[in-house]
């Protein structure tokens, strides 16, 4: 699919009740290893995403996810 937006990845870490911080951190790292996170050239800085969008005349696609969501 032709790129028409600057992709911006935003990760939230939401701990389940009684889940240790280490487990949440592990889930966060596992999320970053998923194919959608690795294959798309996500921009992690919102200011930079806006600069790129301006320069390339594109929209920004922001994807908000969490450690245990799709």
């Amino acid at each position, binding site marked *: 699919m032709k790129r028409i937006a600057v992709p911006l990845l935003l990760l*939230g870490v939401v701990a389940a009740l009684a889940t240790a911080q280490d487990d949440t951190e592990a889930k966060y790292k596992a999320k970053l290893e998923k194919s959608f996170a690795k294959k798309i050239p996500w921009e992690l800085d919102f200011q930079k995403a806006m600069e790129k969008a301006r320069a390339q005349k594109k929209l920004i696609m922001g994807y908000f996810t969490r450690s245990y969501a799709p």
Partner: protein
Amino acid sequence: MDVTKVNPRSMPREEWEKTLFSQKGARGWPYTIFMDADGNVVAKIPLEGLFGDNPEQAVRETLAEARAFVDLQAQAAAHPEDADTNARHLLLKLKLSRSDEDWKKLEGFVATGKLAPETLARYKAFKPGYVFDGMWEDFLKGYQGASNDPEKVKALEAKLAADTLKMHDEALAIEDVKNSKFPYYWNFTGMGAIAAGKPETAKKALAKLETWLEGYKNNPRAKAFVDRLRKKVEASTADQGGDK
């Protein structure tokens, strides 16, 4: 601003409200928001970002909506005297980002004679969606401060369910709600109806949710979402019989 790894369950509310998630009006996770280069929201994939069984189509359709909104925004700015174009722009903008100021502007068009009252009346069916969005925002804010307290979360859900049921007739005027494109609305209506002793109304809400689920057959989370309400409706019907 750096993208932050945030934990809403532990962040103070004032910090939470500075996050992009909160500022851009995301309603759950995952959530997809399209913005212009200035960071203004131009389209969203709602429904907790569940893309349905055809994610590429969902993204393409939403991108088309985003482009249409950006064009409408430009037309409205170029023609401030065109009340109808400006009203359409404000309505779409309100769908994306709640703003009491924008709603007042819309009503102001009528007050200054730039928009006919009957035209605004046609648009007024949109207001319940705006109201529900506000209720949902309040729910998320409350959840953020209380999510480690199951009793508080239960109370928050009960309030949202009761409020949703109260605006049921008005909400049906909104096409997206009537056409089952708003699953959270039907979920909370179902819960509110059960709490109010109206299992038949809850069954109707469940039927709407099951219609929505037809587009998400391959999504186990969507199925689990509907199953939760289904179990409550079944239990309620067994206990209560018909609506009181």
